[in-house]
């Protein structure tokens, strides 16, 4: 398995509180991604990073922010958690071959419940 860990693996939090999820990789891959997975929606990209301090928005970025201060760590922050952000969150990494071709490797996921 690719060296990707996510923490925490499970979290329950209250509406309005900030939450930070961490993704850590040992592969030294350039690209990192945060997805959420919900029934009926598959995997949707929240934010991604193409290098240290280089990030951009995905298709469902509202209410989320990210930071990448080191190659190995990519943090996802829910600034003020809402019940609609209850989901399973996956981090993925990619070596990023030329032309954007190349598979992404996924972490084990974080199950977040906002009450």
């Amino acid at each position, binding site marked *: 398995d690719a060296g990707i860990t996510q923490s925490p693996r499970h979290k329950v939090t209250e509406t309005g509180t900030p939450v930070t999820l961490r993704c850590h990789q040992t592969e030294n891959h350039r690209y990192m991604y945060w997805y959420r997975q919900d029934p009926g929606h598959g995997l949707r990209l929240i934010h991604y990073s193409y290098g240290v301090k280089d990030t951009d928005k995905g298709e469902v970025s509202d209410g989320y922010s990210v930071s990448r201060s080191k190659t190995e760590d990519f943090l996802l922050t829910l600034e003020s958690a809402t019940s609609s952000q209850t989901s399973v969150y996956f981090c993925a990494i990619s070596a990023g071959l030329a032309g954007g071709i190349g598979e*992404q490797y996924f972490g084990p996921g974080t199950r977040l419940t906002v009450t």
Partner: protein
Amino acid sequence: GESVGLHLPTLSVQEGDNSIINCAYSNSASDYFIWYKQESGKGPQFIIDIRSNMDKRQGQRVTVLLNKTVKHLSLQIAATQPGDSAVYFCAEKGLGSGNTGKLIFGQGTTLQVKP
């Protein structure tokens, strides 16, 4: 906008039979496609990929077929085993993603293997 869809949410097959999972995509300019397998409680796992300059690619017990004329992708699993039971996602390289490797995922097909 872009969308990737699978024809059937659930597919049930007998152990030992061949399975065919289908996927339709909307972006005729997509040049890269991937299939992932997701077992319960785990992150998606890369199975096989194909570039648009190919019609067919084979792996171990799996074959991906690409029909660009009708924008259709299929995953064939030979001699399906109980361990193949999972949710299968197709994904395409996102429009305008450049070198970022961004993927658009379909909603998934659940493969159930009957003993």
